[in-house]
């Protein structure tokens, strides 16, 4: 019985170690989760958005990079002073990294924007939500472009 317990403990310990090893890259990735976009870094000015509550949906593969459907949501509910006042979209590889900016009314209970975007090439798109009290939330989406929006026949 004792030996069994020891073995069980040992097993649990190594299982725990495995979990830690598996889990380690995630927090490291979460702090550096945003791709290096000079425009974004400049806008953030040292602030670190939390990677939560924002959902940025883009297709994993984009056949037509001229019109890629995009859906951006921030999960509520939003208590007083916690409204989402602005949403910003940054592109990692487009010639103009600032894709769009949306300013919303305070007190809006459903924060969701859908549009179609252009992507110059495969890249990560970053969405930043700015709350009333200044907190920043973010999400990223990686898209592989199979035909660029910047091909020029001329």
């Amino acid at each position, binding site marked *: 019985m004792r030996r069994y317990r020891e073995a069980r403990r040992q097993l649990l310990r190594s299982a725990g170690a495995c979990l830690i090893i598996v889990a380690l890259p995630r927090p490291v990735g979460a702090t550096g989760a945003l791709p290096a976009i000079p425009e974004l870094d400049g806008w953030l000015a040292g602030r670190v958005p939390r990677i939560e509550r924002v959902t940025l949906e883009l297709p994993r593969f984009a056949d037509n990079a001229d*019109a890629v459907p995009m859906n951006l949501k921030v999960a509520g509910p939003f208590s007083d002073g916690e409204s989402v006042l602005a949403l910003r979209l940054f*592109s990692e590889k487009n*010639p103009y990294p600032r894709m*769009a900016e949306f300013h919303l009314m305070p007190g809006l209970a459903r924060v969701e924007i859908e549009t179609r975007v*252009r992507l110059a090439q495969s890249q990560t798109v970053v969405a930043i939500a700015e709350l009333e009290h200044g907190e920043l939330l973010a999400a990223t989406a990686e898209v592989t472009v199979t035909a660029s929006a910047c091909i020029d026949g001329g």
Partner: protein
Amino acid sequence: MAAGDASAGVAASTAASTAILGRVRLSAPIAAGVPFEVRVLLRHPMETGFRHDELGRPVPRNVIRELVCRRADRELMRASLGSGISANPYLRFFLQVDADCELGFEWVDDAGARGAERVAVKLGAAG
């Protein structure tokens, strides 16, 4: 010769031809304080400034740079767009109001061409 009239006519027709067409649709029915869906579809090439015409001349950048939705003088939504938004921009978003009102939508491109649409919001009305 009525030069004044002629130039006024030209100005009027120019303004009409450069107005950016757009359509705004709201979901129905709308209840007080409950978010409702707004869909905006604009007709615009959203020129990136990276293309060349058939003679090899660069086509200047011209995108709808701003779309604003107002209720009376209060701004409910303002979108700043760039060349990263597709041609014929489509936007779907949510707004909420507490009473019957009229929403004014306005958009403008880099060349200064504008478009506008007014939509009446009637609480509880279907369609």
